[in-house]
Every structure is written in structure tokens, then in C-alpha cells.
């Protein structure tokens, strides 16, 4: 039953926070931090209880839920992939609370929606029933709307609506695919059974794969359905953009991996080339657009699109190495993306009250600590050794070389993408911190406020996480490999 813990804790926390009167700020904050930490500890408990020698799902809970009408069970469990992602969710949840420590407008509602979202995300990663997965997936959509629409910044109403409509249209595609999967095989919505023996024919798989992949891919920022991501990220309050970049985009990628590749291996094989090109293009395209942005948050937003391109590219290789890389990149980008958003949207914006890079005038001397943090985060984002991004991208590129379904030219394209990533990161670091502003009508103080404890804690946690994975990747790669085993197996059978 321990698999239920993170989900239940989050939803109970959500309800408790929501009913606390909004004047009691301190109670709300402490309650939120406790909920997030408790969720994270529950996830750690799952992690240390995971038996790495066995493949397949562990800690399975299965109860009858809906019978007669259609069969859906209340079926939860976790393998290495889910574990990696719930671990990420736990970390981001705690950091998100730290990042929104100073929210004083309708605080109870903010954290109410926040934990509803977190609970939904945990649920998606832990569900072993497609119907249940879909339920949690949709639970995670609506709170985002309110988080952005109420507490967001520029163009929040437009951005929040765009984001929700994109997500819901995506899930509509996915839902059609789910109907077809259910009716095409006789295993109901049971994910483990569907992965090992779906019994779906060639025609059906190739036809419904686009539905599933586009459906989930929209939330993963898949090109050309990525336009919600930069707008949404920039409009969202700091904690929400951390969650969006950190975990919500991973929901989509997870769906693509679990349902797309896992249940429809033949379809995946058929469409892999197409996805490969789209993702490689997204990497280059995202980086190019990031290069030309003047709004600091948009830069990070487009870099997210570029990095998520790596995830989808890794998935499209259909090889062991590539899939490990993709999963690792989900974790890595979750941490690094959240860190970048925390620094840009939280630390810097709260001090300068502008995100326009043209007005940033020698910020390094005014906020040296934050500048250093951003430089570290930038290095992690560029994929330098020591950081988790390096390991993940290395895996993906190696997977791409090994892949039998992808063209070698993709590697060239990815190479260009990586160079561009270096370019925009370094240029933006220069523009933000080291140059005289072209438009310097803003009068910044000589030095900004120093870092508060919550800001230090949040950046510390995230940087340590990316370093740990960068230095000791086996902490995750081991469990990811066992988790991927059944999926790899069916993919191998298909490719023969």
C-alpha cells in the first residue's frame, strides 16, 4: 500500500491547505512544506524499498474499481521509470514550495491547487491502469489553469487558457487512442499485460500510435505543438513554471514512453523516423529561438522546448541506450529547468521586476551570488560534464548512433543543436550579467538584496541533485534499466 502514500499525502495536503483561512500565512506555509516533504520522504521510502534485481512492477496495489460498464481497476505500482520520475516530482514539489514562500495573495488557494497538481502528477507516474492514468493526467491539467491565471504575470489569462486548451486537446487525442487500445486487445486497461502481450495488430498499432504520441506529446512540448510551452512558462508564477518545466512536461514524455512505446511497439517502429526528425529539428529550433529572445523567461522557455526535444529524440531511437538517456534526460531537465526558472523567474525577477535582457546593466556586480548560481545552472543546461545533463545527452547521442531506425544525419543536426545551446547560454549569461545595457533607463540599486534562506535552500537542493546524478549516474541508470527491460524486450522482438 506504500505506493498510495505520495498521492494520498498530496491530496490530503491540498484539501487541508485549501480550508485553512488565508490570513494564517504561517500555518499554510508550514503545512505546505510539511506536505511536500512528507511526499518526498514517501517517495524516498519507495526508492529504497525497490528491489533492483527484479524487473517489472513492484509494490502493486490492485482493487476492483469499475466493472460491468467497462473494466478499469484501481491499479498502482512502480518500476524504475516511474520511480525516477516520482523522485523528480518529490524534489520539485519541495523546491516549488520554497520558491513560493512569499506568496501572500490567496495563499491557501495557491497551495490547494499546487498540491492537487502534484497529486495528479504522482498519480500518473504510479498508475498501472490506463483509465486511472488518464484520470490523474486530467486532474493535473486544470489546477495549472488557476495557478497561472490567478498568480501569473504577463498575459496570464491568454497563456493559461492556451495551455489548458492545448493539454485538453492533447488528452482528447490520447483518449481516442485509449478506446482503440481497449477494444483492440482483450486485456482491458491493464498496462503491464498490455506491454507484455497486447495482441494489437500491425494496422491498428500504426494507425493509433500518432493519436497516442501526439496526445501525450503535446504536453511534452513536441514540435510543432510546443507553442503553449514558452508562453505558459513565462506567464506562470515561479513555482508553477518550475512544475511545468520540471514535471508536467514529463507527464507527456512519460505517456509517450509508457503507452506509445510500451503498448504500441509496432506503431513506434513505424513512426520512429518521423519523430526523430521532428525532435532533432525541435532541438535546433528551440535553441535558435532562445538565442533571439529578449525576455529572460522566454529564453528558458525555448530552451525547455529544445531540451525536451532530446527526450523525444531519445525515445525515437528505440534502443536501450537511447531510452535510458531519454528517461535520464527527463529527470535531468526536470531539475535543471526548474533551477533555471527558479533563478530567472524568482530570484532575479523579484529583485529587478523586469525580465527584459536589454535593461540588465552589469548585474554581476549587483547580484554576484545569483549570477554565479545562474552560471552554474547554465553550465548544467549546456550539458557540461559533472552535471546530469551531460550523462543524459551522451546516452541519447550514443543511442542515436546505435539505433537501427534513425538516420545518421540526425547526429549532425543534434550536434548543431548542442553548439547552439552553448551559444545561447553563453550569450544570455553575457547579456544578463556582464554587459552594459543597451537601454539603461532602469536604475538598479548598487547591490540587490542578498539571498534569503528559502532561495539558498532551493538552489542548493537542485544543484546538488544535478551534481549527484552527474557524478554517480548509476543511482538512477540502474533502476531505469530494470524498468525499461520489458519495453526493450518487446521493441527488440518487433525490430526483428
Amino acid at each position, binding site marked *: 500500500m506504500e505506493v498510495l502514500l505520495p498521492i494520498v499525502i498530496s491530496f490530503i495536503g491540498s484539501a487541508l491547505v485549501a480550508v485553512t483561512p488565508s490570513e494564517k500565512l504561517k500555518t499554510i506555509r508550514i503545512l505546505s512544506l510539511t506536505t511536500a516533504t512528507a511526499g518526498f520522504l514517501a517517495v524516498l521510502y519507495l526508492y529504497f524499498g525497490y528491489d533492483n534485481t527484479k524487473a517489472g512492477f513492484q509494490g502493486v496495489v490492485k482493487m476492483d474499481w469499475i466493472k460491468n460498464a467497462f473494466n478499469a481497476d484501481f491499479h498502482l505500482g512502480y518500476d524504475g521509470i516511474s520511480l525516477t520520475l516520482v523522485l523528480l516530482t518529490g524534489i520539485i514539489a519541495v523546491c516549488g514550495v520554497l520558491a513560493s514562500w512569499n506568496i501572500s495573495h490567496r495563499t491557501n*488557494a495557491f497551495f490547494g491547487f499546487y498540491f492537487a497538481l502534484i497529486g495528479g502528477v504522482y498519480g500518473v507516474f504510479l498508475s498501472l491502469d490506463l483509465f486511472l492514468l488518464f484520470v*490523474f493526467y*486530467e486532474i493535473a491539467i486544470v489546477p495549472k489553469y488557476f495557478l497561472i491565471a490567478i498568480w501569473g504575470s504577463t498575459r496570464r489569462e491568454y497563456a493559461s487558457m492556451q495551455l489548458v486548451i492545448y493539454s485538453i486537446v492533447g*488528452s482528447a487525442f490520447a483518449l481516442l487512442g485509449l*478506446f482503440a487500445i481497449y*477494444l*483492440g486487445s482483450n486485456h482491458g486497461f491493464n498496462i503491464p499485460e498490455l506491454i507484455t502481450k497486447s495482441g494489437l495488430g500491425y*494496422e491498428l498499432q500504426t*494507425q493509433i500510435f500518432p493519436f497516442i504520441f501526439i496526445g501525450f506529446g503535446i504536453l511534452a512540448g513536441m514540435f510543432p505543438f510546443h507553442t503553449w510551452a514558452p508562453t505558459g512558462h513565462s506567464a506562470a508564477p515561479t513555482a508553477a513554471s518550475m512544475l511545468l518545466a520540471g514535471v508536467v512536461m514529463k507527464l507527456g514524455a512519460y505517456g509517450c514512453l509508457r503507452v506509445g512505446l510500451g503498448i504500441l511497439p509496432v506503431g513506434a517502429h513505424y513512426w520512429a523516423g518521423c519523430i526523430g526528425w521532428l525532435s532533432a529539428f525541435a532541438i535546433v529550433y528551440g535553441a535558435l529561438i532562445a538565442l533571439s529572445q529578449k525576455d529572460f523567461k522566454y529564453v528558458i522557455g525555448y530552451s525547455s522546448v529544445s531540451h525536451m526535444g532530446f527526450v523525444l529524440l531519445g525515445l525515437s531511437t528505440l534502443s536501450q541506450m537511447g531510452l535510458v538517456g531519454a528517461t535520464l534526460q527527463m529527470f535531468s531537465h526536470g531539475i535543471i529547468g526548474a533551477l533555471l526558472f527558479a533563478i530567472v523567474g524568482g530570484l532575479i525577477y523579484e529583485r529587478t521586476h523586469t525580465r527584459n535582457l536589454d535593461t540588465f546593466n552589469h548585474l554581476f556586480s549587483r547580484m554576484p551570488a545569483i549570477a554565479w548560481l545562474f552560471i552554474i545552472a547554465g553550465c548544467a543546461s549546456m550539458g557540461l560534464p559533472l552535471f546530469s545533463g551531460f550523462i543524459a545527452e551522451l546516452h541519447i547521442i550514443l543511442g542515436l548512433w546505435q539505433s537501427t531506425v534513425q538516420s545518421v544525419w540526425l547526429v549532425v543536426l543534434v550536434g548543431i543543436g548542442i553548439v547552439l545551446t552553448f551559444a545561447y547560454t553563453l550569450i544570455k549569461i553575457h547579456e544578463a550579467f556582464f554587459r552594459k545595457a543597451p537601454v539603461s533607463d532602469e536604475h538598479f540599486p548598487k547591490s540587490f538584496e542578498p539571498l534569503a534562506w528559502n532561495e539558498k535552500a532551493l538552489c542548493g537542493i537542485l544543484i546538488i541533485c544535478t551534481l549527484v546524478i552527474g557524478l554517480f549516474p548509476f543511482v538512477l541508470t540502474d533502476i531505469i534499466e530494470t524498468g525499461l527491460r520489458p519495453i526493450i524486450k518487446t521493441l527488440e522482438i518487433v525490430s526483428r
Partner: protein
Amino acid sequence: MDYIQLVKAVLPELMLLATAFIAIGIDYKFFRNQDEKLRSRVASNVTLYGLVCALGTVLIQYHLGIELNLGNGQVVITPLNLMFKAVLIGLMFPTVVFAAREASCEHVSEHYAMLLLSAIGACFLVATDNLLIVFVALELLSLCLYTMTAFYKNYKEATEAGIKYFLAGGVASAFLLFGFSYIYGATNAIDLPTISQRLTDPDLPVLFVVTGFMFILVGMGFKMAAVPFHLWAPDAYTCAPTSVTSWIATGSKVASFLILGKLILPALSNRSLSEPIIGVLVLMSVLSMIVGNIGAIRQKNLKALLAYSSIAHSGYLLIGVIAGDAKGTSAVLFYVIIYAIANMGAFGVIAMLETALGRRITLDNCAGCWRTSPLLAVCLLIFILSLAGIPPLAGFTGKFYLFFALVENNPIWFNLSYALIALAIFTSAFALYYYLRLLKACIVKESPESTRALPLSLNLLEQSTFAALAFATVFLGVYPMPLMRFLISRLTN
């Protein structure tokens, strides 16, 4: 006919009727010249007691397992019918609670009596297999609704809406009766079991029967507010007193869909009949989904917005009818109950806000509602998201089941039924746009007026009504099994 049996069967309706008389009588005898608020309170309390008694009786009948068939299908008591009676009386309960808060004209007790009469009509409607009783009960229900729509005599638009509703409804009833006469002509029977038996007859005059069913669909399409027979709905919904709107949108719709299921289902088992009928149903469903959802986007008035949304919902519900089997019908009934609960709640919230602000609620003037009454805001969130079909609320489970029931019958990938549910799924995805706009107006926006608006204090009865509706919406979404199982098992045997 055994009169003891008859009384046993229609005891709840008799109670409602008695309550109607008592409410009027007490009002006229003792409170004729009193303050309207007091009169309203007394009359609503009497009505609520009557409803509780009737509901209790229905539940006792259900518990005793009474099954009766009187007068050759004129009054039929089965567990399914009893459950629907309970649902309808249960839906009348919040209607009366909301009505009690609304400003009333001098005809206080008549208003409640009308509500009760329409409930009686609805109860008879669900508990009969006889076409004539169907017609009479439907007329009783509808006539009360026409009257109540135009209840505020000095409100011109309401009178206009009432007249429109009445004229269109009258014509629709004529179509319905005409259709019934065709069916009678073809099968020589007016009770549904015999009719469904004779419809399988090989030498049935197919064209004749199909024509009859087309007329029936016109009539029912009007009652359900399905496109192209929906034009009365936005007007009537907007201009009627909000409590009446909530009953039009829920109670009458529940009863109509149950009766539609009963009428159409026999015809769909005969292939030569089912093709044209399904064709028309598909057309109505597609048009309803498109027109309803597009229409709702343009609306500013909350009641008009929900009116269009209910047109769209008729389209979704028709999908289950198109499935054409017991499972499809069970999906329709499951969803119509869920829809009714959520819609009742949503209209209730609007009724409360209207009385607090003293004017029509539009997207612009309900801002800051979350501050003045957080409970209502949370309830509205639940009801609207359920209508939008967001899990874990009941609306999602219901819609999923509806769509599933259709494709399960035709599981070939992307044939017509997949195309139909694809349309349904995508239109309901786009519908989230206007539902969120509504929620944005109430929950997101900070109003400059919010400091001026009176804090809305609900009494205990209102609070518990909203709590019960919200609880039902969540509960049926999280644990839909018992109701689903009940409906399926009752419909299959």
C-alpha cells in the same frame, strides 16, 4: 382495477398532490395578507415536508421490492422506475430550496404548487409504459413549465419567453401525439412491451412506422432541447426564475431521456427501422454538439451559457441512445443523472448570486464571488468541472461511459462511431474554454465591487443542499460502480 393496488403504486404522487393543495390552502387561509417573505417560507417548508414524505415513500416502495403493472402498463412500478422517481423528487428538493430564496410575486404558494404538479407529471412519466399516459404526463410536466417560465407577470421578457416556449412546445406535443398515433396504427397497441414485440414483426409497414418515429423524435427533440428543436431553450432558461430554470434543465431532461430510451430502444433492435432512426439521431447529436458548444462561447449571461451547454449535453446524451442497446441506454441514464446533479448545483449557485446581487449574473458582474462566498465558489468549481468532464468528477466517468458504450458496439477503428465520438471528445475539449471563462469570472477575477457586494450568507438548509449536490458529483465520479451496476442489471433483464 384494484384501487388498493393503485393507491399503493401512486402513493408518492398522491402525497405530492396533497402537498400542493395543503401549500395553497394554508397560504390562502392564514397568510393571504401577510408579508411575501413569510408566505414563501411557509409554503416552501410545507413543500419540502411533502417532498420528504414522498421521497420516503418511494424509498420504502423500493425497499419492499414492489413491482406492479396496473391497467395494462398504465402504471408500472419497477425498481428502475422507482429509482428515477426518487431521483426526480430528489431534484425537486434543491429546486424548492432555491425557489425559497428568490423574490416572489403575489402568487407565492401557486409557484410551489406548480413545481409539485410538474414533479407529479415527471413521476408519472417515468412510471408508465402506456403511450397515452406518456403523453398526458409529459403535457402535465410541460404545461407547468410554460406557466412557471412566465411567472413574473410584469417582467416582459419572461412573458415573451413563456409564450415562445408554449407555442413551440405545443407544436412539438402535437408532433409527438401524431407520431404515437402512427405507431398505434402500425402495431395496434399503445403499451410499450406489446409495441416492441410487434415491431419485430416481419410484415411491419416499415415506412409508416419510421414516419411515426420521426414525428416522435421531433417531439422529443424539443423536450430534450436538441438541435434543431432547441431555439426555445436559451430564452426560456434565461428569463424563467432561476429555480425554475434549474428544474427545466434537470428534472424534465431526466424524465425526457428516460422516456426517449424506452420509446426508441425497441425500434433499434429491428434493423430496417434502426437505420433511418439512427441516421436522424446522429444528425441531431452532431448538430447539438456543434451548435450548443459554439453558441455557448458567445454568451455573457451565465444562464444562457448554461442553456447552450445543456443543448450540447443533449448531443452527448444522444450518443448513448445511438448505441442502441441496454448498455448504451444505461450510459445515457447514468450520465443524465450526473448531468442533472451538476447542472442543478450550477443553477443553484447562480440563483444565490442573483439574489445577493439583485440582478442577472453575467460574466462581468460575478467577479470576486470567491471572496464573498468561498463555499459557493468551490461548489461552482466542482459542478462546472463536472459538466466539462474533468476527472475525478462524475461528469468525466459519465462521458467516458457514454462514448465507450457507442464504440464498444462498433469496435472497428475509425468507422462512423469513432468519428462521432471523436467529434464529441473534441467538442467537449473546446467546451472547456467557456466553462473556464465562467470559472475565471467567478474564481479568478478580483472585482472592484467585491468590497461592496454583500457577503452572502447561506442558511443551513442551503449549505447542506449544496454540500449534498457537490458530494454526489464527486462520489459518483470516484465510485460509480453501484449506480452503473444497478442500471445495467435493470436494463438487461
